[in-house]
């Protein structure tokens, strides 16, 4: 189910102290809702990413609890204040127990 899952994240490379930046994340996943049926009328089991967390230097930016009503290839765009240079860490939790992670550095523009 969870093959070829690839997270993609867009974060500016630099920011000024206290700047509000926009972060875009996308992860490829078919997000099988568990409501569809196959050719023989059997329900296709649910297989989604159920949780997404974005943190900056260990501080929570946003956390999303996802239900099957989220589209395939879940996309999130959100804002974050940048108080200092550091690392954004993004984590996705799959129904099957897989965890997908990626991170992005951001520096302070002088």
């Amino acid at each position: 189910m969870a093959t070829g899952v690839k997270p993609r994240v867009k974060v500016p490379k630099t920011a000024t102290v206290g700047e509000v930046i926009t972060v875009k994340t996308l992860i490829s996943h078919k997000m099988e809702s568990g409501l569809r049926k196959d050719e023989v009328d059997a329900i296709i089991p649910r297989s989604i990413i159920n949780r997404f967390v974005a943190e900056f230097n260990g501080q929570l930016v946003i956390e999303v609890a996802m239900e099957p009503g989220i589209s395939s290839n879940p996309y999130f765009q959100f804002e974050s204040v940048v108080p200092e240079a550091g690392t954004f860490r993004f984590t996705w939790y799959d129904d099957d127990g897989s965890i997908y992670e990626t991170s992005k550095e951001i520096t302070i523009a002088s």
Partner: protein
Amino acid sequence: MRLTRRSTLVLCGGAAAVAGLGFGSASASALADEIERFTGGATVATGLVSLTAPEIAENGNTVPIRIAAPGASAVAVFAEGNPLLRVATFRFGALNPAGVASTRIRLAKTQNVIAIAEMADGTFRQASTFVKVTVGGCGG
């Protein structure tokens, strides 16, 4: 309530014709129940929170929505015409004080999308948007 929802899902996946029967009244109370699970029965005011979605969505499988809830600690998004009413729950940390987030959701049919925000002081605010769906994303 859980059972009702389950059976509604099956209807949605299988026969669209059956889904028409008695669906309206059932979904209204189910929605109230689902919202109460989030608010704990607190009264919900309007204002301060915004939910942006297209007036007409051609493809119900990916409908872009944007929420902006300054000062909210959490926002739950509900789709009143979906087999599973709750779509997502956002929790905002201190680094996102404007409570801004966008995502893409599935909508089974033309319906209201509702965002309910829990503000930092424990009160609840809601915003809703009516979305016309041309081709429903029924269960995927």
